[in-house]
């Protein structure tokens, strides 16, 4: 990159930063049109961009900003009142300016966009006041200009305001300083007159002279600076904003600041004899000046701009250090074991803990350098809400809290889009029109609240609206209509599950596609992006009351806490952010429903998948009756991952698998462990996807191990009991299964079925059980059967017309492996039975 490119880059970075602030200021301005500070700030942004762009020869941009500047200048002087119409024009021009800047960034040219109509509108709004007067006359500054300093003749035509302004402000500053200094001097003089009379004569002389000199010096510096400016404006424009990371840009005090201290030491040196008094006065003056600046403008933050690459590099190095630390800790543990009680151990322990402590602190410190306030993202929303509310004819207010909450830069970049979609959604679907709101007894103006706060190692962003809320039934019917889900699926859905339908691709509740929403893409993007960040989404909503969406995102991406799990002889790391809990269950608690493994976790049914099935781990041994289930939660879905062992929690550094192995499904990356080995990191989002297509093998191995009683030589060796109170139903089942040639035994209710089982005349391979039966229903029967150890693995298949979720749940609890809803096709029944009794086709 050559230097011109560098200047251009700095210009762009600066401009985009300024504009970001600008949007917010402008929206604020609309509510407070008289706020001079705000106006000045906005004006200066336009001015800075104009100055820099003219230097860089972006004529179109200069042309546009020049007219913006004019208009804003008029407003600043009270010649123009900012109302909604004027604001529209200003906002339009800002948008155009942004577009031009984007164009410059992408192509290096500012052509190709039509700015003339906008310029005309700007002029039209401004018309009535001759532009020339503003252009030529120095701006009257609210601060009274008392000292008549001759205006510098070098003032360039294109920038009268700039020089006028800076001068005026410098003057004001000087004026203030002089007053301050004179007051000080007077006090000192009074003091001095008591002790030494001779000094008295010199003193007024000196103070008068030094004042004049200070002025002269400042004057000279200004002139010099202006001359330099022509050549150096580019550097200047990148230097100036540097100390201005604070929202208020203060371009003019910046040049004044160095000039004052420079003038001060220069002044007393030649005139005053080396007396302690004037010398002491000089630093005092500087102090006073600094205070004044802090009071007058905003607190100038001490910041430097650092290339993100350097921070990334630093972060990588820290990553290495963390790995080294982990390794050191491991070695320390080994040494401790081997040389227990030795004196040097204590010392080693200390060193290790210090290194570990410092590394952790260092890591936090470096992470902090990468942190940005989320306000950076939030800033664009006031403007967006304003535009949306005008477009949708709604009255919407945005309340932002916690914008100072910080999070990693890479996350700030990713979080913007999802938030835009959510807020758009809230505006479009959430908040009702004023009429509707009034009719339903709400305030006319809807409120969207945007909250950010820390919660442990996470940042939580909450978007709350007081709109019409989500209607679970409506969401379901819409989804069915759009073919996103089937009716059967919809029936079994809880309210929360229904809410999460809005994240399905292709789903939209908007009656028609508007420019705001309705294409059914947005919320899908939200989910994808949040998942990418290992975040979670939680929706709460009440019809008529509003919706609250909670995004929970880990603070940083590069170094994370992970849960290490073992399967056979392999280890995997699962990001702790996605781990909700871990539970130890006995294998009996794993049920199979429609050939998927599930378990009951408190009042939920959790589908299970074995990590070995996902990652093709050969299962050589299976040693225990127990399994560990890691409950994973991501965005709005949950899954239980069965693992062989839980190793522990460790801080890991995410490393890429490189170009050659990238994009392996289910693997997010790798990390290096304390022992130097590589451990793969599970990509929870992908794992959840994969789990859908993986066939369960969880429950089978134990069943297979025990095997069925007896050997099967012919189809009739298989025996099935049909339990149903309805003769018709029994006949249908019999007819369906007869083609298999298996032995069928019938029972009319639970009690009879249980008796047949107890008699032991038949060795059953499976049972088809109706739920609704007299004397003893299907659930009770199943529960009774499962009490016998002998029948623990006997497949019980429910055949019923009850298909609610609660019914299925009860079925699972009581030990049913399959749930067939009436009506069913004979083939279906046959297949289910065949599968469950492991029917050997070859016989």
């Amino acid at each position, binding site marked *: 990159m*050559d*230097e*011109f490119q560098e200047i251009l880059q700095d210009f762009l970075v600066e401009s985009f930063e300024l504009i970001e602030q600008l949007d917010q200021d402008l929206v604020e301005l609309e509510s407070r049109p008289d706020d001079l500070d705000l106006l000045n700030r906005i004006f200066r942004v336009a001015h800075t961009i104009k100055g820099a762009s003219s*230097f*860089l*020869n972006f004529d179109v941009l200069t042309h546009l900003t020049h007219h913006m500047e004019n208009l804003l200048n008029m407003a600043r002087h009270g010649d123009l009142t900012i109302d909604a119409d004027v604001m529209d024009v200003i906002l339009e021009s800002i948008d155009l300016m942004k577009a031009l800047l984007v164009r410059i960034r992408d192509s290096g040219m500012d052509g190709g966009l039509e700015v003339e109509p906008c310029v005309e509108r700007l002029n039209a709004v401004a018309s009535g006041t001759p532009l020339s007067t503003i252009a030529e006359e120095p701006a009257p500054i609210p601060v009274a200009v008392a000292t008549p300093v001759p205006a510098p003749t070098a003032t360039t035509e294109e920038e009268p305001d700039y020089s006028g302004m800076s001068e005026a402000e410098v003057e004001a500053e000087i004026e203030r300083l002089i007053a301050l200094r004179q007051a000080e001097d007077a006090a000192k003089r009074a003091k001095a007159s008591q002790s030494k009379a001779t000094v008295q004569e010199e003193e007024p002389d000196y103070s008068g002279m030094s004042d004049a000199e200070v002025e002269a010096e400042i004057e000279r510096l200004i002139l010099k600076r202006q001359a330099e400016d*022509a050549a150096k404006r*580019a550097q200047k424009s990148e230097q100036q904003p540097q100390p201005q990371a604070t929202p208020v840009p203060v371009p003019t005090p910046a040049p004044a600041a160095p000039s004052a201290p420079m003038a001060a030491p220069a002044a007393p040196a030649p005139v005053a004899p080396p007396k302690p008094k004037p010398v002491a006065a000089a630093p005092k003056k500087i102090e006073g000046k600094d205070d004044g600046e802090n009071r007058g403008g905003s607190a100038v933050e001490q910041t430097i701009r650092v290339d993100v690459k350097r921070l990334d590099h630093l972060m990588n190095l820290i990553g*290495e250090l963390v*790995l080294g630390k982990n390794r050191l800790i491991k070695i320390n543990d080994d040494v401790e074991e081997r040389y227990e009680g030795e004196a040097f151990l204590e010392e080693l322990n200390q060193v290790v803990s210090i290194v570990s402590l410092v590394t952790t602190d260092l890591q936090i410190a470096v992470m902090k350098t990468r942190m940005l306030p989320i306000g950076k993202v939030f800033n664009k929303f006031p403007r967006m809400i304003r535009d949306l509310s005008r477009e949708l004819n709604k009255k919407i207010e945005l309340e932002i809290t916690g914008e100072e909450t910080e999070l990693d830069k890479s996350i700030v970049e990713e979080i913007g889009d999802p938030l835009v979609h959510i807020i758009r959604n809230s505006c479009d679907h959430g908040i009702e029109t004023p009429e509707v709101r009034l009719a339903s007894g709400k305030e006319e103006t809807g409120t969207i609240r945007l909250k950010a706060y820390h919660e442990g190692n996470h940042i939580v962003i909450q978007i709350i609206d007081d709109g019409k809320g989500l209607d679970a039934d409506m969401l379901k019917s819409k989804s069915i209509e759009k073919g996103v889900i089937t009716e059967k699926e919809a029936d079994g859905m809880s309210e929360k599950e229904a809410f999460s339908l809005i994240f399905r691709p292709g789903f939209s509740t908007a009656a028609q596609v508007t420019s705001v929403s309705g294409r059914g893409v947005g919320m899908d993007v939200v989910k994808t992006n949040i998942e990418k960040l290992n975040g979670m989404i939680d929706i709460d909503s009440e019809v008529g009351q509003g919706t609250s969406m909670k995004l929970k995102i880990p603070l940083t991406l590069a170094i994370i806490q992970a849960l290490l799990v073992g399967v056979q002889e*392999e280890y995997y790391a699962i990001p702790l952010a996605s781990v909700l809990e871990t539970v130890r269950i006995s294998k009996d608690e794993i049920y199979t429903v429609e050939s998927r493994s599930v378990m009951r976790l408190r009042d939920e049914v959790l589908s299970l998948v074995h990590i070995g099935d*996902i*990652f*093709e*781990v050969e299962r050589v041994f299976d040693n225990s009756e127990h399994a560990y289930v890691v409950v994973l939660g991501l965005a709005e879905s949950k899954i239980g991952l069965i693992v062989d062992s839980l190793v522990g929690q460790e801080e890991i550094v995410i*490393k*890429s*698998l*490189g*170009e*050659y*192995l990238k994009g*392996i*499904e*289910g*693997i997010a990356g*790798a990390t*290096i462990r304390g022992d*130097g*080995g*590589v*451990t*793969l990191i599970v990509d929870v989002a992908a794992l959840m996807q994969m789990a859908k297509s993986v066939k369960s093998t969880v429950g089978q191995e134990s069943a297979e191990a025990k095997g069925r009683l007896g050997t099967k030589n012919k189809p009739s060796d298989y025996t099935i009991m049909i339990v149903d109170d309805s003769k018709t139903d029994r006949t249908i089942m019999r007819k369906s299964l007869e083609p298999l040639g298996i032995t069928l035994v019938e029972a009319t209710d639970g009690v009879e079925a249980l008796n047949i089982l107890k008699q032991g005349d038949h060795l059953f391979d499976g049972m088809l059980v109706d739920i609704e039966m007299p004397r003893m229903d299907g659930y009770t029967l199943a529960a009774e059967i499962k009490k016998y150890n002998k029948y623990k693995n006997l497949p019980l298949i429910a055949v019923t017309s009850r298909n609610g979720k609660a019914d299925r749940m009860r079925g699972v609890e009581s030990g049913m492996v399959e749930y067939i809803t009436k009506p069913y096709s004979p083939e279906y029944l046959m297949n289910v039975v065949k599968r469950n009794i492991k029917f050997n086709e070859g016989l």
Partner: protein
Amino acid sequence: MSEKLQQIINKQHKTLSGDDVKIDEVIQLVGFIVGDEEFSVPILSIQEIIKPISWTRVPQTPNYILGVFNLRGSVIPLIDLRSRFGLEPMKHTEETRFIVMKNGDDVAGFVIDRLTEAIRLPKKDVGPAPDTISEEESMIDGVGKQADRIITILKVWKLLERNF
């Protein structure tokens, strides 16, 4: 104004551009054995050669990808050249080595049966790969002829290319 600036900047940036150094007429190769054959790769494409260390299996990859290993903090894929060339896998021996090859940013370790030697070969002694090469063997860059033997030179970029 800016044109002027541009000019100055350009001038400042005009660094002395040396004449292109003449490419050496001799190529240097490292020879190794996989199965019964001797192969070689240009010495400059080799980052390092190490003794076998432990690696971690990566699921959902072809069988010739053994997994990944840790090379001083970098996670690097490990490819078994025997399997890659369609040979029966063999237990690692004392002579087994990992050759870490690189091509630009692509780096991978390759398991070979044993090393032979570093070879200096005049460019004129390198012939093209035989025409009868099938697609599977298009990893061959050329064939080096020495007095007593023929050495297959492999395309490193092809070896490092992901083909699944």
